[in-house]
Structures are given as C-alpha cells and as structure tokens.
C-alpha cells in the first residue's frame, strides 16, 4: 500500500518537522520580497531546503532531493552575492516551494513523490546559471547527492601516520571522482514558470492539502473523529510528560493511603483521627486528580503559531492576485490550543483571511481616496481570555455596511423586508453567515470556492466555539472567534425532564428563568415569552425529544444558537458540571452528542441541540396551554 514500509515513523517525523520548516521558509520568502538583500534570510531559506533535502535522502525520495538541491543551489548563489533576487527568480522560487509542498502531499499519502514539472526544473537550472555567466561551480545534478559508493570514500586502507593529511587527499579525490560532474545537463533556453496561480491553487499549494481535506467534514459537537488519516501523533515537551508521570505517582501513593484507611475503617476504627486522615487523603486525591487532568490536557496543547505561520504567504499571494498590497501581521503565536482544534481551525481562518483580502480591504485607488496608506494591514491574533481562546482576524479596510448587508439579504430572498427592518447592526453583520449569502457583487476568483461564511461558522460551532463581527465604517472589520480551551471537557448545564437528567452545552445557555404562566403569550398558536423586550419562542425539551409531556415545565433555559434564540422548557435543573465526553461511536441516537458520568455515577446524555432543532417538526413550537398548569398547581419553586 505504501512506498515507505518500515519507515512510517521516520516518514511521520519528517513530515511534521519538514512541514514546519517549509512553512517557515514560506514566511521568510514573503519577508525576502520586501528585503531581497537580507543575507540572514537567504541563509535561513538556504538551510531550510538543505535540511529538507537531507531528510528526503533518507526516505529515498529522489525527486524531492533533486528539487530541494536545485533550490538550495540557487539560494547558495544568492546568499553568496553571486546572484540577486529578481521578480523572475522569486516566481521560480515560490513555484519550487509549492512543488516541494506538493511532494509532501505525496509523502503523506505514502507514495514516492512524482517528479517535479520539467519546466520548473529547467527554470531553476536557468536561474542558477542565471545572470552569472561563469560556470566554475557548475551545479551538479542532484543525483550526485546520493550516497557515493561507500568503498570509494572509505577505502584508503594503507597505513599512514595519525596525521589526517594524506587520508583526506585520498578521500577527497575518491569523493570528487565519484561525482564526476555532468554539467552539460543544464539547458540554456528556459521556459518561464507559469506564475499565475488560481487562489484555490495558492491555498492548496501552501497547505499541502489533499483532496480529502474538505472543510466541514469533521464530526458534530463534542465528538472527536475516531481516526484521521493524517498526523495522529503529537509532540510533547518532556517536562510536561514528567509532570504527568509525577502526578500519577503521587496519586498512586494517595491510593495506597486510602486503601490502608479503608482497612482500618472496615475493621471498626472510626475515631476522629482516622476520619480526619480519610478526609485529608480524599482532599489530596481531589487536588492531585485535577492537577493530573490539567497536566494531561496540557500535553494536547500546541502553540497556535504552528497554524498561523502558513498564513502570511497565503495572504500575500491572494492579495497579489487581486492587485492589492496586504501585509498579514501575526500576534499571540505562543497561545496554546488543543491540537485537534488547530487542524479544524485551518480552513475557517483561511476563509476569513481570504474574505478580508477580497472584501474587507479596498482597492488601491479607494484607499488612496480615503487617505489611507496603500499597504493595508491584516491582523491575525490569538490570546487566552479566562478559559477561552480568542482569535481575531482584523482588517483595516472599509468596514461593513449594515444597510447594504440587509438589502443584499432581502434581494437574495434570505430574509423578508420586514425581518430586515428589525435587525440591529450586529444582527445585520451576522447575515453574512447565512447560507447562500455572498457579498461580492460578482463572484470573484478569490471567493469562488463554493465555501461561504456559513461554513466558517458551522466549523467554529463544531468546536463549541462562536464567531462574531465587529465593524467600524471606514476603519475596518474584525471577526472574533471564541473557542473553549479544549474539546475534551465540555461545561454543561444539567436539566431534568421528570427524573431523567440531560446535559446541554453551557456555551449555548444565556440564562435560566422560571416560566410564569402570566409571562407566556400566544403568538399564532405558539407559546412565546418576552424576555427583556425580545420575543422568544418556547420549545419544550420533551417536544424536541419526542417524549410525551408528563408535567408542566417549571423552568426555561434561554438558549442561543447561531440561528435563533429560544426558551427551552424543562422540568427542573440540577446545576452545572464539567462533562468529560464519551462519544457513542457505533450507536448514536439522533440529537445525542455523547454521554458523561456524573459524580454520583449516573450516566447522562449530552444533547446536540443543533441536531434536535434540525428535526423540522420540533421547532414548530407548542400551544400556550401546554405551559399553563392545571388549576391549583403551583409552578414556581
């Protein structure tokens, strides 16, 4: 199946590390465009290709070695000042980098990389030869980097003095002899590389994306995909692992202590001293376990910079395609986030950047007219706020026009004229998240990927996150993504239907309020409630689940989904809990995201509200009468 049998570990290591390296190279290339003479940059890029080449050699990936070798040679000449960076050579270099990325894609699928485009190889060779006519250091064909015959190199068996001199002479001739150059391979006439890349290609090339990576394929709320093909490994700082080990050791000791105490207590000892010791041991265990949970969670955390670093290049290429000058500024790259989320955030952030470059940033002439600097600054920032991660994508463009958004939504038939008139600014901005909404008057190259902002929002929600928009006319728009620190632990609200508890994600809960009969109104045969001026439909949990209603619900939970706010009518509630989600892989009833175990050992279903609401008839609402208790029955309390 794979060309790398027996080398899977090595391959995985290589891909992870070389992938990071290549992203770094990409960013340095963006910098290099701005300061083409920076020796340090040239050196770093040279070393990047050099290192990738070295690793590729061990994987026997000859084509990758060839490509890296040529690119490296070009940078060798650039860094030595023998050549200088030109627009043409830059295009060739970028194309070569993309080709390397392509080859990584092959490697990820377990196939030997295909040969790079001949035109590209020829362009590289031409560029190396380039302006400098002297062929003194003719580029050797990359095959030369294959291991020279071991015997030839190592073979100098005659005994000499310990002095290295003679050995080295021999060695040198052996090596150079084995590598008799065939510089004739270099062609003089070089077809230029096609520099115009469609945005789709830009993004795919920059990400090394495979066809199977589509946005919106990850699992529903709170569920982790069983296995993803790619990169199931994780790099963890050994200090963090040591901490986990330490804590589990201490927990072991505390467990022993508890065992001893149990023996004592079972044999009748229940004096204050013993009970006090028990109390102490249990508290200690409590502390240790929560420390351990934290420590284990930390092993899953990765700096978001690993994700961020591939974006400056994408932003640059997209902007260049549209004739705009955009610089993506990164901040908060050290912010740590759950590794699985990093992967799932990749597409939404790309789309937001693409959206900002395409729609947010004005054309050069508009910017000049508005008296703004011609280069626009796009900010991608991450930071931790409490137990949340906040990611900002901010542009300094024209900002969003609530009026235009409303008109657009009405024209597209997404909302009625009437609905539009009731929307405030924030709600108007959120219209862009509606499926089928596209702000571009004509579908441009950049935004025509068939993926809209609605998918961005859906994907963020799958991570139990939320996205909102802030905008200042003329100053720019900011997309704010709010994410939980991890998917492994989900804060939930426990609600009850009769005696049966259910858990709903706390992130959707706005508030809890008693349902007073006199606050319930009837609008078109459906029960509604006015909360601080907002008219909200009341949906009963029993109705959503399709259960018969056995008692009149006493409480309402004001839930906010992205599409709607509503009052979920429940019988009672039991407080909040941090649920550790166990997914029901093979057997998953509709509307159930998973299960969790309560402190008393009871198993509770975690509801997937989105799925429940998707059941058409469930959202029809219920008549007011269902919420009015029969005579004499008290509701509150």
């Amino acid at each position, binding site marked *: 199946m794979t060309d790398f049998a027996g080398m899977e570990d*090595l391959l995985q*290591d*290589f891909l992870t*590390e*070389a992938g990071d*390296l290549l992203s770094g190279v990409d960013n340095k290339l963006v910098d290099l465009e701005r300061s083409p003479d920076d020796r340090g940059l040239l050196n*770093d890029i040279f*070393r990047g290709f*050099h*290192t990738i*080449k*070295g*690793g590729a*050699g*061990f994987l*026997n990936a000859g084509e990758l070695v060839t490509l890296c070798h040529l690119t490296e040679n070009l940078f060798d000449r650039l860094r030595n000042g023998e050549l200088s960076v030109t627009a043409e050579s830059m295009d060739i270099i970028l194309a070569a980098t993309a080709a390397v990325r392509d080859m990584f894609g092959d490697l990820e699928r377990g196939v030997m990389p295909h040969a790079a485009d001949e035109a590209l190889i020829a362009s590289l060779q031409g560029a190396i030869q380039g302006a400098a006519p002297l062929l003194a250091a003719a580029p050797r064909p990359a095959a*030369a*980097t*294959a*291991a*020279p015959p*071991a015997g030839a*190199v*190592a073979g100098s068996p005659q*005994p000499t*003095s*310990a002095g*290295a*001199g003679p*050995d*080295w002479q021999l*060695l*040198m001739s052996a*090596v*150079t002899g*084995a*590598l008799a150059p065939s510089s004739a391979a270099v062609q003089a006439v070089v077809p230029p590389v096609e520099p115009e890349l469609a945005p789709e290609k830009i993004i795919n090339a920059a990400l090394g994306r495979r066809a199977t990576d589509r946005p919106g394929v990850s699992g529903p709320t709170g569920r982790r995909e069983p296995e993803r093909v790619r990169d199931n490994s994780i790099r963890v700082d050994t200090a963090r692992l040591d901490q986990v080990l330490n804590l589990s050791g201490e927990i072991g000791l505390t467990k022993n202590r508890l065992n001893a105490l149990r023996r004592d207590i079972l044999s009748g000892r229940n004096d204050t001293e013993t009970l006090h010791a028990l109390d102490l041991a249990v508290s200690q265990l409590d502390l240790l376990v929560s420390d351990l949970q934290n420590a284990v969670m930390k092993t899953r955390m990765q700096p978001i910079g690993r994700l961020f670093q591939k974006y400056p290049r994408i932003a640059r290429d997209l902007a260049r395609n549209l004739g705009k000058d955009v610089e993506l500024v990164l901040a908060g790259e050290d912010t740590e986030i759950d590794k699985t989320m990093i992967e799932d955030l990749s597409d939404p952030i790309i789309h937001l950047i693409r959206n900002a470059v395409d729609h947010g940033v004005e054309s050069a002439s508009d910017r000049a007219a508005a008296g703004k600097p011609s280069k626009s600054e796009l900010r991608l920032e991450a930071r931790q706020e409490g137990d949340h991660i906040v990611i900002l994508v901010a542009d300094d463009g024209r900002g969003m026009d609530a009026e235009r958004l409303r008109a657009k939504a009405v024209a597209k038939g997404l909302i009625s004229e009437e609905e539009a008139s009731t929307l405030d600014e924030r709600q108007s901005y959120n219209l862009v998240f509606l499926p089928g909404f596209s702000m571009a008057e004509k579908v441009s190259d950049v935004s025509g990927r068939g993926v809209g902002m609605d998918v961005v929002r859906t994907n963020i929600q799958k991570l139990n996150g939320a996205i909102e928009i802030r905008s200042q006319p003329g100053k720019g728009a900011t997309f704010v993504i709010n994410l939980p620190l991890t998917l492994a632990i989900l804060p939930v609200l426990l609600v009850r239907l009769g005696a049966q508890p259910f858990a709903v994600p706390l992130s959707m809960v706005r508030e809890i309020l008693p349902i007073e009969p006199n606050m319930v109104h009837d609008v078109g045969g459906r029960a509604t409630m006015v909360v601080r001026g907002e008219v909200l439909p009341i949906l009963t949990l029993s109705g959503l689940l399709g259960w018969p209603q056995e008692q009149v619900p006493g409480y309402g939970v004001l839930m906010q989904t992205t599409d709607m706010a509503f009052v979920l009518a429940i019988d009672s509630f039991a407080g909040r809990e941090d649920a550790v989600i166990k997914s029901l892989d093979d057997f998953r009833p509709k509307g159930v995201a998973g299960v969790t175990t309560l402190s008393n050992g009871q198993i509770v279903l975690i509801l997937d509200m989105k799925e429940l609401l998707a059941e058409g008839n469930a959202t029809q609402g219920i008549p007011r009468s269902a919420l009015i208790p029969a005579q004499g029955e008290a509701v509150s309390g």
Partner: protein
Amino acid sequence: MADPKLRFLVVDDFSTMRRIVRNLLKELGYANVDEAEDGAVALQKLNAAPFDFVVTDWNMPNMDGLTLLQTIRRTPQFKHLPVLMITAEAKKENIIAAAQSGASGYIVKPFTAATLAEKLEKIFEKMGRSGAA
C-alpha cells in the same frame, strides 16, 4: 567491535535527522546517545558531561558544525575527541575545510548503517594507531 558503553553526542538542528542517526547507531550497538540541536548546545553538553564521540551536521543555526569542530579542536580537554561530520554536500571545498579543521571523518547523506559502521571503524582504527604511537 562496538563498545556499547561509548557515549555519542549527535548534533543536528533537524530532529528527524538526529533520530535517524540515533537509530543507525543503535543498530550498530551504540545505545548511549545524547542529542544537541546546534553547535552551541553541543558545547554546553560536552562541558556538562563526558562524551566519547561527536557526530555532527554541518549546516546549523547559531553555531554550525565546522565552528563546533574548530572549537572542539581548540579546547584542550576535547581536542582528542573524535568528530564525524555529516553533511548533504560532497563538495571538495567542504571536505578540505573539514579535514583542515581536524575532522576525524566525513559522511555524506543519505547513508546506511553499513556506511556509518565503516566510517566509525576507520576512525577507531586510526585512534588506536595514534594511541599506540
């Protein structure tokens, strides 16, 4: 034959490469291996604990392999330490530069355990001779 107690220091900025070298060494029976990600870190490690053998990449940030080699040769307590240079280059200038700086051996990527064994053997042989002389 391989002395399993020999303590190796593998220096490379690319952790995949360090792992490759470490695995090859293990294949040859050398399990006592430590790693450093550049010349500067390598020197720290050399100063902190005794090593018997250094295997180093050439091209690294902070301090490259050649500078590491030169520093080792200049430092009295390290100067007899065998240093095997690993690089992707088989360039004449590089080999001469390494030789002049006192490299004990030079190996070109990619290589097999057999090639590595051969190089090591040769270096040990040379050391044995110089020790006897």
